[in-house]
C-alpha cells in the first residue's frame, strides 16, 4: 500500500480556557486517521465533539503550542511548521470551506477579489489573470461576473456558498476540508450543495474531508467515516457499514437520533450530554452516557482497535450482542399420542444492546414459544441460546441464576401472572424476595423506584392495592415494574399491550422504549401488530409455522418485504388509505 496523502497520528489539540488559564481543555485527544488521494473521509459527531478543532489543526490555524502529534502530508511533517511554513500548505494543498458561507467573506471587499486573493498569493498570478481564473471558477459553479463584482451582502446564501466553494478550489488543492456544508439549510438548498460537492469530487478527484453531523450527507459523500466523541475517535470504518450496522454505542445513538425518511421509528436522543471538556470523565469518555458500561469502562480508556471490518474504541468491542439464538428448535407432543407439533424450527436471531427486535407473525406461528425459550421458561431441543456470548446451557448454579435475572419476560396477560391476593408492593418485590437481593428496606425503595419509572404512583396507598383494584393498563405497568426491579439486560415482551385499548397501547409502548433508552437493554418484542412495532423496532423478524421466513432492518421489511407472507401480514395491517381528504375535523 502506498503512503497516504494525509496521515494524522495521535493528534492532540490543547487550549487554555480564556477566563481560566490554568484549566487546559483537550479538544482533540489522540486522533489518528489516514486520507488517501481521491478518497473521502467524513468526521461525524455532535456539536462540541472537536470536529471543527480537528479541521483547523490540519491547516495549522491553532495558536503555537496548542497542537501535538503528527500531521504528515505526502510524508512531510506539518506540526513542526511555524506560521510562515504553513502558508504554502494552506489553500495550495489543503483548503477549507467553513461552516457558514455567510460569514466566510470579508464584508467590505468584493467576492471576486477574495477568490482572486489566494491565486495571486500562491500562484503568483497577476491581478487580471487571477480575476479571469476566478471567473472560470465561478462559471463552474454556475455564477458569473456580476457575482464576482458583488459585495458579500449583495449575494444570496446559496450564491455565497457556491462562491466559497469556488474560493476553496481556486488553487486546486489536494485536500478540501468541508465543515458542516449542510447545517442550518433547508432541504432543497442542502440537496443542491450535496450534488455540487459530489460533482466537484468526481470532476477534480480531490480528497474530501467532510466534517458533519448530517449522516445522510455523509452516507452520500464519504467513503469512510470516523466518529468523533469528546475529542476521541469512537469508531472508524467504511461509511456504509458503519451507518448500517454501527458498532460503537455512540454511533448507534447518533443514528437513532438522526431524522430520516427511511424509517417510521421514533427519534431517540443519546441520553445525557457531552462531558465538560475541562474535566472529561475517567476511563472511556462515553461511559456516563453508555448503557452497557462496565467497571473497566469507568477506569480504562479504551484504545481504538480493529473489530472485524473496522476500528472501534470500546472495551466490549462495541455494542454487545445480548442475545444470540442459534438454530433452536422445540416440539410439543399433543395429548401424548405421539403426534408432535414443531413449535419452533431452526430459528436464529440476535438482539444487540439497545436494540428492539420485533418478532411478528399470526397466532400459532411459534413466536410465544420462541419468547419462552429465550426467557428460559422452556429448554430448546436443539440449537443454542447465548446470553452475552455465553451459552446458557453451559451454565448452572449462580451463573445461571444471574442470567435468569438479567432476562425478564413481560407476559401477554397480566392478570394471569399475578396473584390476586398479593398487594402491588408484594408483586413488584417478589423477584427481589426470590433472588434475595438487598435488605428489606432497600427492596421497598427499589419497588418505589421501579413504580415511578413506569409512571405509577409510588405512595403507600398505591403500594397496598391489589390487582382487582387496578385497570388493565395499570396492572400491565405493575408487571413491567416487576420485570424492571431486577435491572434486566434483556426484556422479552410477549404481546405486552394487546389487551389494552389504543391509547394505553401507545403510552405503554413508548414507556418501554423510554425505559430502554434510559437504562439500556435489549428488547425482544413479540407481537402480531406490524403497525405498532414498526414505531419502535430496529429490526423485524417474521415467523410462520415455527420458522423464521424473513428478517431485516425494520424499515426494509416494512417498505420492501421479500417474503409473500410478510406482504400478506403488511397488507392486513390497519391503514387509513381509504381517506380521501386527510386532516381532522375543523371543529368550526
Amino acid at each position, binding site marked *: 500500500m502506498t503512503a497516504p496523502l494525509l496521515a494524522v497520528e495521535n493528534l492532540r489539540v490543547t487550549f487554555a480556557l480564556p477566563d481560566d488559564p490554568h484549566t487546559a481543555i483537550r479538544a482533540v485527544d489522540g486522533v489518528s486517521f489516514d486520507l488517501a488521494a481521491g478518497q473521502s473521509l467524513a468526521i461525524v459527531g455532535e456539536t462540541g465533539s472537536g470536529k471543527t478543532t480537528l479541521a483547523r489543526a490540519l491547516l495549522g*490555524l491553532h495558536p503555537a503550542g496548542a497542537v501535538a502529534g503528527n500531521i504528515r502530508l505526502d510524508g512531510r511533517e506539518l506540526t513542526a511548521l511555524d*506560521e510562515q511554513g504553513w502558508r504554502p500548505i494552506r*489553500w495550495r494543498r489543503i483548503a*477549507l470551506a467553513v461552516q457558514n458561507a455567510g460569514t*466566510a467573506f*470579508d464584508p467590505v471587499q468584493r467576492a471576486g477579489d477574495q477568490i482572486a486573493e*489566494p491565486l495571486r498569493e500562491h500562484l503568483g498570478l497577476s491581478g487580471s489573470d487571477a480575476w479571469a481564473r476566478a471567473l472560470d471558477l465561478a462559471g463552474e459553479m454556475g455564477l458569473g461576473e456580476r457575482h464576482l463584482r458583488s459585495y458579500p451582502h449583495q449575494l444570496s446564501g446559496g450564491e455565497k456558498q457556491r462562491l466559497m466553494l469556488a474560493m476553496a478550489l481556486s488553487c486546486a488543492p489536494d485536500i478540501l476540508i468541508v465543515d458542516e456544508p449542510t447545517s442550518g439549510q433547508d432541504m432543497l438548498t442542502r440537496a443542491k450543495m450535496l450534488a455540487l460537492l459530489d460533482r466537484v469530487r468526481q470532476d477534480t478527484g480531490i480528497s474530501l474531508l467532510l466534517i458533519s453531523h448530517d449522516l445522510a450527507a455523509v452516507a452520500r459523500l464519504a467513503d469512510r467515516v470516523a466518529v468523533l466523541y469528546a475529542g476521541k475517535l469512537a469508531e472508524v470504518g467504511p461509511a456504509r457499514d458503519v451507518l448500517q450496522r454501527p458498532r460503537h454505542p455512540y454511533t448507534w445513538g447518533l443514528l437513532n437520533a438522526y431524522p430520516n425518511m427511511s424509517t417510521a421509528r421514533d427519534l431517540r436522543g443519546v441520553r445525557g450530554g457531552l462531558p465538560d471538556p475541562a474535566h472529561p470523565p475517567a476511563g472511556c469518555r462515553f461511559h456516563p452516557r453508555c448503557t452497557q458500561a462496565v467497571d473497566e469502562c469507568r477506569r480504562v480508556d479504551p484504545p481504538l482497535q480493529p473489530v472485524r471490518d473496522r476500528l472501534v474504541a470500546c472495551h466490549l468491542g462495541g455494542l454487545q450482542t445480548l442475545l444470540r439464538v442459534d438454530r433452536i428448535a422445540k416440539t410439543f407432543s399433543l395429548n401424548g399420542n405421539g403426534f408432535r407439533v414443531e413449535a419452533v424450527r431452526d430459528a436464529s436471531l440476535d438482539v444487540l444492546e439497545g436494540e428492539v427486535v420485533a418478532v411478528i407473525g399470526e397466532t400459532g406461528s411459534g413466536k410465544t414459544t420462541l419468547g419462552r425459550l429465550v426467557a428460559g421458561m422452556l429448554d430448546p431441543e436443539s440449537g443454542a441460546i447465548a446470553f452475552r456470548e455465553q451459552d446458557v446451557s453451559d451454565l448452572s448454579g449462580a451463573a445461571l441464576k444471574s442470567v435468569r435475572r438479567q432476562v425478564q419476560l413481560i407476559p401477554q396477560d397480566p392478570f394471569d401472572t399475578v396473584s390476586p391476593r398479593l398487594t402491588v408492593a408484594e408483586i413488584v418485590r417478589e423477584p427481589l424476595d426470590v433472588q434475595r437481593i438487598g435488605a428489606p428496606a432497600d427492596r421497598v425503595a427499589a419497588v418505589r423506584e421501579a413504580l415511578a419509572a413506569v409512571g405509577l404512583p409510588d405512595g403507600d396507598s398505591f403500594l397496598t392495592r391489589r390487582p382487582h383494584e387496578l385497570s388493565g393498563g395499570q396492572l400491565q405497568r405493575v408487571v413491567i415494574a416487576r420485570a424492571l426491579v431486577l435491572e434486566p439486560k434483556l426484556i422479552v415482551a410477549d404481546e405486552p399491550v394487546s389487551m389494552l385499548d389504543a391509547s394505553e397501547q401507545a403510552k405503554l409502548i413508548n414507556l418501554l422504549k423510554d425505559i430502554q433508552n434510559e437504562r439500556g437493554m435489549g428488547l425482544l418484542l413479540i407481537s402480531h401488530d406490524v403497525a405498532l412495532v414498526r414505531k419502535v423496532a430496529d429490526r423485524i423478524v417474521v415467523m410462520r409455522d415455527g420458522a423464521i421466513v424473513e428478517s431485516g432492518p425494520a424499515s426494509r421489511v416494512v417498505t420492501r418485504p421479500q417474503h409473500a407472507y410478510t406482504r400478506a401480514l403488511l397488507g392486513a395491517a390497519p391503514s387509513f388509505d381509504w381517506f380521501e381528504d386527510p386532516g381532522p375535523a375543523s371543529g368550526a
Partner: protein
Amino acid sequence: MKSRFALTLLSLWAVLTLNFLLPRWLPGDPLAALLDPDSSSYVYNAEVRGALEAYYGLDRPLGEQYAGYLTGALSGDLGRSIRLNQPVTDLLREHLPWTLLLTLSALIAASLLGVIAGSEAAWRRRSPVDRALVVVSVVASNAPVFFTGMILLILFGVELRWLPLAGGRTPFARYDNTLAQVRDYGAHLLLPALTLTLALVGSKFLLVRNSVIGVLGEDFMLVARAKGLPPRRLKRNHALRNAIVPFVHHLAAHAAFAITGALFIETLFQYPGMGRLIFESVVARDYPVIQGVFLVVSVLVLGANLLADWLTARLDPRTQEN
C-alpha cells in the same frame, strides 16, 4: 445618507432657533438687563447699546425678531461684540483658523497613533504591552484636558523650558522666511496639540483595538489565514480595513469632543482660538459672541457628522444601499 442630510438640516435649524430663543426665554431676562440702566450688566457705551438694540430688536413682535435673526445669521450678521465693539463675524473669522489648526492637527495625530497602536495591541492582545497601553489609555482619556494640559505646561514649559508657555505665536515677531514662521507657529502649537492628542488618543486606541479584536474573531479572518495570506495582508487588507469602519463612524463624535477639548486648552494656553474668545466673552457676559461661537461650533460638529457618515458609507459597502 439622504435622511442624514435631512437630520443635519433639522439640527442646524434647531441650533439657530435655540440661539434665538435661549437669550429671550431663559429666566432672568439677560438681554433686557443689558439695556436696563439699573442693571449691573448695563452697557454704557451708547454706540454698542444702539447696535445691541438693533440686533436683538426686543421691542418688535417675536415673529419679526425671529425672521430678522434668521436672515441676519444666514447672511453672516451675528451682531456686535459688547466687549470689543466689533462684528461677531469678524471675531469668529479671526479666531476660527487657530481652533481648526489645533483641532485638526490633534485629530490627525491621535487618529494615526490610535490606529497604529490599536491594531498592533489587538494583534498582541493580553501581552504586557497591550495591557499597559489599555491602562494608560483609560486613565489618559479620563483626565480632564485642562488638567493634563497643566501638567504638560508645567513639565515642558516651566520646568524644562522647551516650549513657549502661551499664545499662538511669538508676539510682535517678524519672520525672515516662511520656515521661521512655521517653526514659531509649530512651537506654540506643540503643547496644546499634544494635550489634545493625549485626550483624544485613548478612546481612539481603545476603539480600534476592540474593533480589530472583534474582526479577528470573525470567520472571514480565519478563512483569510487559511488562505495562506501573509500577516501584513491579513492585518491591513482584512483586519484593519474592517475595523476602520467603526473608527471613521466615531470620528464625528470625536470631532465634537476634540473641539470641546480645544476650547479648554486654548483657555489654558492662551491660544488665540475660539476657546480663548469664549472665555473672555464669558467673563464679560458678551452674549452675541458666545452665541456666535455656539453657532459656529455647532456647524462644525454637524459638518463633521455628515462627513463621517459619508466616509463610512464609502468604506462600508453594506451601508450604501439603505
